Each structure stands twice: as C-alpha cells, then as structure tokens.
C-alpha cells in the first residue's frame, strides 16, 4: 500500500472517506487499510507535537480507537485528512494538559533510546536531531507536508495560518534541517 504522501489529494481523500464509511459499518478490513494508509502521517504529526516517545505511542493507538468509535460523526465533505488531524491534535493537547509537561525539549527528545532495535535507534536519532532544531510550529508544518502529504493550502486551513506564513516557515525549517543534517551526518 502507498503511503499517504504518495497519493494525489483527490484520490487520497476519496479512499479515506471510503475507509471511514467502512468503519461506520464496523468493517474490520476498512480499519486495517485505513491504519496502513495513515500510520506514518499520523505518527509523524504526533511526533511534531509530543516529544516523549512513550506518550507518542500511546496517543497513536488512541487516535485509531477514537476514529473507529466516532467514524459516524465524520461529515462527508471531502476533507477527511483535516478531520483526522484535528482528532490527533486534540488528543495530543489533552495529553499535554494532563501531564502539564512543559519539560525542556532537549531533555525529552532523548528519551526512548532504550529501544533494542538498532535500526530504530538510528532513525530515532535522525528524528531527534532534526526535530530538536526547529520550533513546534515548523515541525508541524514539515510533518504535515512531507510525511502526511498535505498541500500547503490544506495546511494553512488546518492550522489557521496564511498561505504565505506556511510557505515561509516551511522553507525556513527545511533549510535549518538541511544545515544540521550536513553537520551531524559526518
């Protein structure tokens, strides 16, 4: 199955709506397909807000359970991704409120290295390194565009920012990441 960012937006939206429709009918396959299609987009988005790996993993599960439970509340108007990301965002902020964890980013991003799988540690390091260097808003824009495959206009609507703000923040963040990657990948 293709990742979300590889689809044309119109095809993507139609597929997502089909899967949500399937979930209303309690179709297990629809949920599985939906999960496979969106897992990177959703996890990436969570990581842009939540820095603690265990929390991110928890929220990741909660998102799918919430979507499955509330699938009938989705209004079919061609914007499934905005709906999905709003649910995800709300769960993230709920977690932050509960934890009141305004802990220093540097500190928290280094949690989660106890993972046994070395491949994951390496990727995690790239993520930590990249995400530590940019602001939360920049992270969100980067993740939504690169990992979730949302168009700039969709992002500007979802985050309530003007198109030019989204674009300039995106390019600035990308440049920062490029430079740090240059330094750190020696």
């Amino acid at each position, binding site marked *: 199955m293709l990742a979300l960012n590889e689809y044309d937006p119109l095809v993507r939206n139609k597929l997502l709506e089909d899967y949500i429709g399937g979930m209303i009918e309690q179709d297990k396959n629809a949920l599985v397909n939906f*999960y496979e299609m969106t897992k990177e987009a959703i996890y990436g988005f969570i990581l842009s807000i939540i820095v603690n790996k265990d929390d991110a993993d928890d929220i*990741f599960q909660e998102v799918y359970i919430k979507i499955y*439970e509330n699938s009938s509340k989705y209004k079919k108007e061609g914007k499934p991704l905005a709906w999905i990301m709003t649910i995800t965002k709300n769960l993230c902020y709920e977690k932050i409120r509960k934890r009141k964890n305004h802990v220093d980013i540097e500190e928290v991003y280094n949690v989660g290295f106890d993972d046994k799988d070395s491949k994951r540690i390496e990727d995690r390091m790239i993520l930590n390194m*990249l995400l530590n260097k940019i602001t939360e808003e920049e992270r969100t824009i980067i993740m939504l565009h*690169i990992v979730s495959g949302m168009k700039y206009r969709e992002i500007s609507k979802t985050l309530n920012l003007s198109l*030019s703000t989204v674009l300039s923040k995106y*390019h600035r963040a990308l440049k920062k990441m490029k430079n740090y*990657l240059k330094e750190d990948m020696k």
Partner: protein
Amino acid sequence: MRNKKVKESLKLAVANSVPNVLDNILKKCEEKKGFKSKMIKVTNEEKKRKFITPKLIGCVCGFIILLSFIGIIGLNQYNKAFKVETVIEFDVNPSIELKINDKEEIIEAKALNDDAKKVLEDMDLEKVDLDVAINAIIGSMMKNGYLSIDQNSILVSVKNSDNKESERLQKEIMNEINELLKASSIDGSILTQGYDDDKEIEKLSDDYNISVGKAKLISNVLSSKITNSKGELYNFDALAGLSITELNLLLNDKNTDVTSVDSTGKASDSGYIDRDKAMEIALDDASVNKNNIRELEIEFDADDGILLYEVEFKYNNKEYEYDIDAKTGEILYKKNDYDDDYLSNKEVNNSDNNNSNNNNSSSSYIGKEKAKSIALNDASVNENNIRELEIELDDERNVVYYEVEFKAGNKEYKYEINAKNGNIIDREIEIDD
C-alpha cells in the same frame, strides 16, 4: 545536501519509527464497538440477487411481449429517443455533462462537480432541445458568477463517433455560447475539442476528479511540451487545479496553440495582477529600488493548481527569487542568495587593483582560489587528483562562507570555509558511493 535528501531521510525515519500496534488497536476497537463479519453481508447480497432474478426475468419477458406489439418501427423510434448519439461536456469550473440523442434532445444532464450542482439546481433538462439547455446552463453559470468578465473561458468537449458531426456540433455550440455571452457584454473565450473513448484519459479524469474533457485538454497541453519558469515540463498536478480561464491564460502567455483544440477570443486577465504589479510587490518586499536592479526576469507560471509569477533579479551582490500568487498578489515563496558571478568579478578586480577600497564587504573575502587551497591542504589531497569540484559562496546566521565540495579517490569531501578569515567552519568526509 539536497532538499530531497532531507525529505527522504525524514520520511524514512518516521516510517521506521512507527510502533507496530495494529493488533492492539484491533483488539481495543473490537471491545469498544465490535466488528461485523463480511460473510453476513455477502450472504445478504446473494439472497437479494436470488430474490430479484425471477422478477427480472419476468420483466424482460413482459418487455419482449410489449415490443412485439409495438412492432419494428415503434422499436426503432423508442431506441432512437433514448440512444445517446453525442456526449457534450462543458467546463468552466463547474463541469456539466449532457447526453443527447440524434434529434439533439437531452437524455441526461449530469453535474460532474459541486459547482455544477449549483448551476443545475432545480433544472429539469430532460427531453429539452440542446440550444434551450445551453441557454439555461450558460445563464445559470453567469447568474452564479462562474462566467463573468474575469472568468470568461469555457471548454466544450464533444464526443461523437462521426468526426464531421462532432465538428459541426462544436462550431454550432461555440457560436451559440458566444452570442449568449455577448448579450451579457462578456467577451468570451471558447475552446472546443472532440474526444473519443480513451482509457488513459478516463483514468486521469477519475484520479483528479475532473471531467474527461478537461483531462483531455490538460494532456493535450502537456503534449505540446510547454515548460515552466525553471525550464521543466509541466505535469498534471501543476495544471489540474486550474480553471479553464486560468489554463487559457497560461496558454496565451506561453503563446501555445494546442493541436486539436479550436478557440475563439482571449482569456480575461482582469482577475489577476500583471507583471508590473508582481515586480512591484517583489521589489517592495526586498526594499530595493527598481533602477538599481540587474537581470530582471518575470515569468508567468503555474504550480499545484495556482497561477503565479516568478520574479528574479539581482541587486548589489545578491540575487533574489520570488513567487507571487497571480490572483492575490501574495508572496508564496522567496529566496535570496549571494550572486556568485558578481563576487567572482569583484575578486578579479581586487587582484588587479590592490588599492580598491573596502566599501563592498565582498572585497575582504579570501576568494574561491584561496578557499580551495585551504580545503585541499587540510585534506592533504593534490589538486590534480580531484574530481567534481564545486565552490559556492553561501551564508548562514551572518557568517559568509565558501562551500567547497570535491571528490578524490573513493572519498567525498565537503568544506565550509569562512570567507573572511579562511578558518575551516565545517569539514565532512564520506566514502563516495
């Protein structure tokens, strides 16, 4: 380091970090809301099918008996009235499809997108003559603001197995619409084309949720090999989101005649800013006076369904690049970099004339040659043994540096050398794969 590489690394890193919790999710979802087995559904459908089949056979039998009463002539007429002779698609942004019989009466009028639903609202066009239907549709498009002085272009695509008939209809409809627009003081631009069944085009139409006619027009535009401001060929993504007026504007600007498309009139540009305005916005943003810039280039372009101007110019020792939304004048993208040509000229001038003053900051730079020798010296590599040398001037947080890249042996070297004092800021050595 290319943007693409950063994006790929990030995508890969996220993809590999996703925890595998599908089983957990399935378990919890089952507890909360449960799943319905697909098997039940299938048997339901089978039951339905079994239930319907005898009825259907009955209907067919009845129909055959009926036909034998009506006789051969009756059958022909009945067939003709409902036989789709021609399919016509109208695209503005609303897209409407009309199916007509050989008497040019409407068999079916279908809205192909949401805008079109608004246009066709409450209209019952069945059995109406084609010219009356066109009148009603164009009237409604004007009333709803889809056709106006700003948005004056409409695409008419005709599908009929007989080419001559298709051409005749295209002409007739073009004249008809032209008259209607003129009556409302709109100088219309009407594009017409014929089309046939084509699996590839139909797939594009499905994928992008646009009419077959528009998909056909875009693929015709693409095959005319027009290029964007970066000199690359356009792709479907860039153009699919444009309205017909916008596509038409782009074609007019690129001076492109698309084969197999007939057109009349010019696309209206009154809803868009012009080149001068785009330039003004860019210069304003850069706080630069128009009289002092060099090598100004302004190109009309489309990306991701947005029409824009790409404005490029040089000022002092920098080069600027802007993308300006042609509709709103918004700055979509901007970038400024050091102008390598400008600096290398300065370097030459400086070595020619040691008395040159230090007004320009670049005059105190060490120069590309010096940067190269510092890097080679540090790497202990002889100049004769290096490949793919690239030296660029760049800046980051007010530090101006030379980026020196080269390959030697099986290694790839990247240096950042402070342009003022020659210090090595960064050094990166990799095995060249």
